[in-house]
């Protein structure tokens, strides 16, 4: 129980960060759930950096190479 409260506390700032979000599509026939919409905004933000690096890995590598190569000269 104690552990759970701690977990909840650590999660609180993330949830608070979410600030209410509304879905904006016209044909939604299922309830997206307010909590589910808020949490996906947060998770999307958390994983975005990794996702960006993964999808742009070649470009990032080239950039790093260019920068570090430039310094060597």
């Amino acid at each position: 129980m104690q552990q759970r409260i701690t977990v909840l506390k650590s999660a609180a700032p993330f949830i608070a960060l979410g600030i209410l979000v509304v879905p904006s599509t016209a044909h939604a026939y299922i309830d997206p759930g307010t909590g589910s919409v808020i949490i996906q905004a947060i998770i999307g933000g958390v994983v975005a950096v990794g996702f960006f690096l993964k999808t742009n890995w070649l470009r990032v590598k080239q950039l790093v190479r260019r920068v570090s190569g430039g310094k060597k000269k």
Partner: protein
Amino acid sequence: MIERHPASFRDRSGYIYRKNGTLLRAVQPTYKAEYDALMKSGLYDQLVGDRLLIPHTEVTGGARGAYKTLKPEPVDFITYPYEWSFSQLKDAALATLEIQRRALENGQTLKDASAYNIQFHQGAPTLIDTLSFERYKKGAPWIAYRQFCQHFLAPLVLMSKVDVRLSQLLRVHIDGIPLDLAAELLPRKTRMRPGIYMHLVLHARAQQKYESTAKKAKPRKVNVKALVASLESLIKKLEYEPAGTEWGDYYTFTNYTDRSFREKGRLVERFIKNVKPKRVWDVGGNTGAFSRIASDAGIPTVSFDVDPAAVEKNYREAKKREETNLLPAVLDLTNPTPGIGWAHEERESVTDRGPVDMVLFLALIHHMAIGNNVPLSSVADYVAKTCRHLVIEWVPKGDSQVNKLLATREDIFDDYTQKGFEAAFSRRFKTVRKTKIKGTKRTLYLMRRK
């Protein structure tokens, strides 16, 4: 005659119905722009080309008031997520995410992510709901995220991390396993894994926290592509190893020498050739050895078994061999899948999805009659509802498998004799062929329903 499908009522974009036996899908005028976007963006062709979406043709003379009427390619046999093994559910989940990824690249999104929208069509997990797409506004949330987590992520995590049999929770919770329940069932260590913690545990907490909130809120942008990629990498990592199956050593058990096993196969093959069935159900399929006699001959075959580990092995084999006619599925014949959902009609019982031309009922009668105390006449009555032809193996007392069942209990089955069996089944079936399986105490029958 027009018959609207009882499960087709949630989404107002259209509905499916049968007209003179043909399955059709009406697209409502309100969905026109979305349907046109799917067809014109190239997404439809791309998904159909990669066997991720069911192909359809547009037909005339459809329902009154419909924008379009579609005739989808028929799916041989509908299965539900609670009838899938771990890898079947995992592949269905990954197919859903792949479809969503491609939709996003084409400026569209999946507006639902129901596991019931995925069917195994010619071996591949395929989206059968053509009206699941809508145009996507960049930064908008994924409406179906919650549904995806409930229908796919929660059961997969539970099956992988707790017990594979927990897939059966999907039978009780028709809209997927509630995330708070899933989180509660997980061991503490598993709960703290980053992906599981975010998509399941925190997600469940957020749901609880905002449960009663109906406030209009400030829009916040969501990176749905990153969200989908994160779900994909989490699900790809989930594993399940079917160690010893319930029937693991069944074929190596003393009943069958290699020779009599092959002999039984030859007899089954001969019976199938005699009847030339259009569809076959193997209702005690184990890992599919005998089902493949039918499916390899080009007959669409469902290979049922009660043991999820056997079905898992069967599915892996089918995938490896790229089989298009074999569909493994979990079924407990002593408690066959019932009709569930609204009015008991949303998801059909297994019996209502039949009958088929032929049922294989091999090495199973003793499990029903002795293992589950079902009178032989009652077995015959039920089986007669499922098929026109029956290949059934009589397993007498004295057979090592029957001895095993009787080892720990009193033998109250005086009527469990070959004579009693023939009498019980002759009420419903006519025996066409009857052959002793050499090297065993068993007899194989080909019967035709009266």
